[in-house]
């Protein structure tokens, strides 16, 4: 579809007068060019404007269309690839390095603010080398992170599901540089979490349960042979996370420690925290709430979906109610009208590819 044609259709659908077109069109074009066009799950050939036209067309009345447009215009938060790349680039200096500096300061008896002294101390170098960086999903962009932080290839891995052979290999390389050493700090890195449910669920389920099991359960596969349990610290870092999710994960870790009788230092943190203000802007607007409940397709509520809160399922998984879209995929914690897949009764503006594909 040509852009001009899409724009013409849009003005017809929205019944815009020339002064409204003057105002809206430059903004849409600018935002589409800046970010929205880069959404990776658009069908081939589709760009934002075409998707917007198709999305708006399915709503019954002009009032509904206006509410839908308002959602995009005033509430949509789109994290572009460039923005995410920036977060990846600063993760080491903003979050990881301060942890290593603090740790070194504690060990060597320096004041934490004597940064240059600490950085020049060999203990800092050892602590850095004895750190293991594990990506928890593709979104962690662990390759970009490694290059940006100038890390050794042998201490960064893209997945927590790893062969015993690789672990032995990594340990061997570490011990070549620092004899008899083991990894004593583990950084688990991921891009985004809104509910925390993917990471911690009761009964040791969730990604963290699996990672902890592979660290603490002594068997051939897993990390247990490469880890120094006495001084072990685990730090879970996200680029973007809701405050709720961080709290939920912390709670889940406490439970896991209790259930498994383990004690170790474990923190959860993120670069870009999202508090509940943006959710409240959605839930506090009755027009928007009516609209998103009206245009919901409950066939998306499957066995995975009901693992979260789902009294108001149109608010997204676990009722997170976020108006947020990531450039590579819409999270299902966002309001459903943004991400409903293309095969549903109503289609999302940024249709989502599900992690749990239907068979």
């Amino acid at each position, binding site marked *: 579809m040509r852009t*001009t044609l899409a*724009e*013409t259709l849009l*003005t017809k659908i929205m019944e*815009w007068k*020339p*002064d409204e*077109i*003057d105002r809206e*069109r*430059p903004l849409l*074009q600018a935002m589409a060019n800046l970010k929205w066009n880069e959404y990776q799950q658009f069908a081939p050939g589709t760009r934002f404007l075409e998707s917007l036209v198709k999305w708006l067309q399915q709503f019954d009345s002009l009032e509904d269309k206006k509410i839908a447009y308002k959602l995009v215009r005033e509430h949509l938060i789109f994290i572009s690839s460039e923005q995410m790349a920036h977060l990846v680039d600063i993760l080491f200096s903003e979050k990881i390095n301060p942890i290593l500096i603090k740790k070194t300061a504690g060990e060597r008896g320096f004041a934490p603010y004597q940064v240059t002294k600490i950085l020049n101390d060999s203990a800092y170098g050892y602590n850095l080398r004895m750190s293991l960086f594990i990506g928890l999903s593709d979104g962690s962009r662990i390759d970009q992170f490694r290059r940006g932080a100038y890390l050794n290839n042998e201490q960064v891995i893209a997945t927590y599901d790893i062969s015993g052979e690789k672990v032995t290999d990594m340990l061997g390389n570490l011990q070549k540089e620092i004899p008899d050493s083991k990894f004593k700090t583990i950084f688990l890195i991921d891009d985004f979490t809104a509910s925390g449910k993917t990471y911690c669920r009761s009964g040791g389920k969730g990604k963290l349960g699996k990672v902890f099991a592979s660290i603490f359960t002594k068997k051939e596969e897993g990390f247990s042979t490469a880890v120094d349990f006495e001084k072990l610290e685990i730090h879970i870092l996200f680029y973007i996370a809701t405050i709720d999710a961080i709290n939920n994960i912390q709670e889940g870790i406490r439970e896991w420690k209790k259930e498994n009788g383990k004690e170790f230092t474990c923190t959860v943190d993120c670069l870009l925290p999202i508090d509940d203000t943006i959710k409240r802007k959605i839930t506090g607007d009755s027009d928007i709430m009516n609209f998103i409940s009206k245009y919901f397709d409950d066939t998306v509520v499957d066995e995975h979906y009901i693992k979260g809160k789902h009294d108001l399922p149109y608010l997204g998984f676990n009722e997170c109610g976020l108006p947020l879209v990531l450039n590579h995929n819409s999270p299902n914690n966002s309001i459903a009208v943004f991400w409903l897949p293309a095969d549903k009764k109503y289609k999302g503006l940024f249709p989502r590819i599900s992690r749990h594909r239907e068979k």
Partner: protein
Amino acid sequence: MSIKIRNPFLLRASERIESDAGFLRLYSPLVLDYFIDIQSAGKLWDTVFFIRSSPGAGKSSLLRLFEPNSLLTLQNRKSGDEFKEVFKKLKKIDAVSDSTIQILGVNLTFTRNYELLENFSGIEAGNRERLFYSLLNSRIITATLRSVLALKRLQFPEDLSRIEFIYPNTKLYFKRIIVPCNGQVLYEWAAGIERSIYELLDSFLPMTQTSIEGHNELFSIEALRPEYIKVDGQPVFKRILFMFDDVQKLSVKQRDILIAHLLEKRSNVSLWLSERLEAMNNLRTNVGRDYEELNLENYWKDRESKFEKLLISIAAKRAAESREDVEFALDSQLNEFDLTDVFNEAKYILFAKIKELTAGTSKFDLWKEHLFNFDGTTQEICQLAKLMEILVNRNLAKPELALNYTLSLQEFQEKTDEKTITASRLFLSKQFALPYYFGMGMLAKISTNNIEQFLGFSSPLYERMLSMNLNMTNVAITAKDQDKEIKKIANDKWKELQKMIPESTLVIRFLENLGSFCNNETYRATAPYAPGVTGFYIDATRTIRLINEDDWISNEIFTDLQLVLDTCLAYNLLHVKETMQGKKGQKKNVYYLNRWICVKFDLPLSYGGWRTKKPDDLLRWTRR
């Protein structure tokens, strides 16, 4: 992929349009007619020439035209329709010939870092001047070498050694290198001077015996003559043109030294100095005596129809660059049919008003008869009625004996002049909320001889045309919508002032007082200064006061007023126009409101209406 954009009217200023071809395509060469005129009078080349205007009037665009890359692009595309006209005009002023580029344009843009040198307390005053000349000489030389390479399409710095500098050095300007020399040697020497000056400025250490080469004069422009510069043994150009842009960024002292030096030397060099009218001081330089000056705004001020033509051409060129293929079209007529009810009501009210005004006299019976029986459209009748109302008011206001003789129709016609007709149109629009600011002519006036201002107003209008095109309706904006949009833009600009200008509270208060003063004077029933008042003249001579107003420009008491006027001139909120008035040959500097501010205060856009104000009155406008 197309590089065209939606709304090319949003592109600003020559320095931000990247490609030379893109710049030339958008450049409208009408101002070159001025150069053609002074070229034929033999005053264009081999002289010092000032180009002055407020920001956005086209100074930098003009200079960019003479840079090697622009001229090369033009030579290569001279047969293309978009480039033909510029080429023809540049040929007339001898900048290019059919097969060669005659001129080497060397552009040196001043930045605030020259001022740094002036304020550097570590250097004593005498040395400061010498270092200033050193810095200028070194930058002129490096800029010239770069331009030579650009003109010959050679690489910088790899090909510097292909340049030969065969200056005989009889005056021993070059003391630390052996001249003649090649471009590489010359460049390293000049760049070395610049580097050492920066090291000095950056150093925290106290100034000690310096090894920097100080110069006593601007010899570089003397030495860089076409006959002394060759590339691969061949002469490169016929004439060198030094263009100093943003001269206002020098300190006052540096600017004075530079200008005095250049005028004193009279060295037959083509040197253009371009500067903003940033301070009133600039207005006091000796115009026309020792050098030629082009004040871009004044140039267009005297050529209104030509300026309108320029804008039409700019608009057409910009519209052609839009990817949406929409012409820039403004409706120049009122939609009379849509306004039928308004005009009918206006006619009724105006007739009643004239009857009321003339109730006690038979003096105007013939005029009224003419009006009531006038065979014209309702719009024409309304305009005539408003005109008559003004003339009746003027007549009634005269302290004459009530002889009550009837005035003839001929007298009505004699008293009718173009200015009063314009005033009656303005009054009619104001009274019945009819559109007034519409049409290309009006837009040209609002632009106040400033191209950037034109683009500021035309970009939202073009956006509207694009929107209307998308809506599948006629793209020409109606008079009513133009008027509404133009007023909105003016109001938005007014709101922006607070953020844009220094001392905004003082300036805005002053302009508000001035605007409402002009509005009151304009809309008096007798339209005494038809079509309206939009400016003031400062009369500091006639008053006998405790404060001597003669020297208000330098008197501390008037600091606020000086500040306000300086800011208004620098930001193009007021502009000065010379007016002949009073004794024969006496010229007065009248301060006029920028025309967009006239829109804000519902004022007419023509010049000529101004009132005399004393400095003390003006000062009061800054206070309350």
